[in-house]
């Protein structure tokens, strides 16, 4: 299950991902930020429960980046496991998103 939470200031949208970030959750994931009236200024993606990711999952993160304004995007990936980090590094995502 994926959960979505908006901070009290209305500026930061936090999406907590399930154990897998792949094509299976694409609809839920896209819905999480696309149903907003206007894009938030900050996005936090919590991967504490996530063990696996594939290229569709990476693609979905890129969609979020586009949605959040490409170069101006403020997207933070938090609680990444070492394994997830290594995949993100391989895909050169550190250059595109903030990985913590």
């Amino acid at each position, binding site marked *: 299950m994926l959960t979505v939470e908006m901070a009290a200031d209305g500026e930061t949208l936090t999406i907590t991902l399930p154990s897998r970030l792949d094509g*299976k959750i694409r609809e839920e994931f896209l819905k999480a930020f696309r149903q907003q009236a206007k894009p938030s200024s900050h996005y936090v993606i919590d991967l504490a429960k996530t063990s*696996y990711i594939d290229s569709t999952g990476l693609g979905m993160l890129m969609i979020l980046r586009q949605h959040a304004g*490409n170069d101006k995007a403020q997207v933070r990936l938090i609680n990444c496991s070492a394994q997830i980090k290594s995949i993100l590094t391989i*895909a050169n995502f550190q250059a595109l998103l903030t990985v913590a």
Partner: protein
Amino acid sequence: MNILIADDTRTNRLILGSMLREDRHTVILAENGREAVALFEAEQPDLVIMDLVMPELDGYEAARMIKSLACHRFVPIMFLTAVSDEEGLAKCIACGGDDFLTKPYNQTILRAKIAAWKRMLDLHRTVTAQNEKLEEHHARLRQEEDVANQIRSNVLDAGCLNHIGIRYRLTPAAILGGDLILAARRPTGALHIMVGDFTGHGLSSSIGALPVADLFYQMTEQGCLLRDIVIAVNEKLRRTLPIGLFCAACFIDLAPLTRAAFVWNGGLPPVLVFNPDAGCRAHIPSRHPPLGLLSDEEFRCSFEEIALTSDDRILVYSDGLIEASNPAGELFGEERLMRCLAKRSSSDKVFDDILDALGAFTSGAILQDDLTLVDIPVDRVAAQLDHANIQETSQGEWPLEWDIQIRLGPDAIRTHDPVPDLLQLVSQIPGLYRHKERLFTVLSEILTNAIDHGLLGLDSSFKSSIEGFERYYRERDQRLTELCDGSITVHLWHIPENGGGTLTIRVEDSGPGFDHSSPAQNFSGNVTVSGRGIALIRSLCQQVTFHGKGNCIEAVFAW
């Protein structure tokens, strides 16, 4: 009632006897004390009415003997006597009598007294019967507790807690405890430890430990990450425990090679790291609610990492330790515990120091709650783990070289995701488990490629925008539904090689293939939504080759 009358005067016996018969009692007559004792034994009356002054054996002596014969049976003795001095009457009670009435007696009063005694006897019988039943229940409960305790020990002892150098004290407040300590080795060599404290103590809190232990051992053996185990245990408890019962717990993942511990503490007192040079050098307080409360969505399972140095010990305790009280009602408290640690005694003595201090403090007061203290000497545990791992590897109980091939037809492709099963299979190879996450990506990527591009003929180039991404998946769903022929063959084989091995993944689809001579994808500068699949496989595997017309890919994962 069955009433024994003892009187040496015949007239008295006759008058009293006929009066009692009139009231529907059965009457037994004795002429003196000795006869009364004999008849009491033979006839087992419910009530004895006795004269005091009799030949052979007087009333006092007869009463004494009757009471001792009656043993646990309650048979009231009422003296009916001409003696009226206080001392004589008091002696009636002293020698075992229960009541007296002086002669000449009033029939109405005597009848009233007999009725009162009957009521007393009935009450006594009810209470005795209930008592027996209660005792029976109690005995059965004790027996069941023994059995439950046995089951509990069997389940809890299934791990390696007693063979890995960990010291612990687990003192239940009742026969059955609600605290538990579990330790088990992952196939990769890391150690998983769980210390739990269920609310309350006794049977109800003890029962909760069983599914937890089972799940913990099973998942650890399968090589699951401790993080996943915490999630599963929480969910299991949330589903099984009634509201109000939950489990404060701490999980520790001890990696002997990297000398690091990952700790999750939900509801237990702080986990302490002790070192003789620094005393208590770190503590990890509870940062989560106990297990069994939060749903999967709310549950957080972030672990804290502690770098370990030599001589470190990890100490875990339940609140039963700091809440143990002395006879004056004071609590042992965290401060006394810290004082034990501040002594910085040689590492091995810490455990005993704490228990000695506790023993001296409580001086035998009864425990109000289950008490648990666990001492994990990191060096020793690491050594034991290494030793056990070496033994296991040399035994070679795992199938190291294997080969498997599966073919998926349209229905299987539509309804079944083979990646988790394949991952489960390859994770059985010791050592390869550590690469599970990477292997997931590789397998998932290769299969997605084979299905999406090979069989369904989708073009990922229109995935470049959000709209395109959605169109892509709509198209994919539709083509998948319509897919009526074609297949995918997955062939996996593993060859062991000096300490590691090579896993080859070969996937062939029945599609038309593609021109694999076109330039390879890479990541740099790719800010689009797609085009990472093949590049990911190339980065994660040592070697990737395409065969035939591009409908067969072979990836080699060496480790």
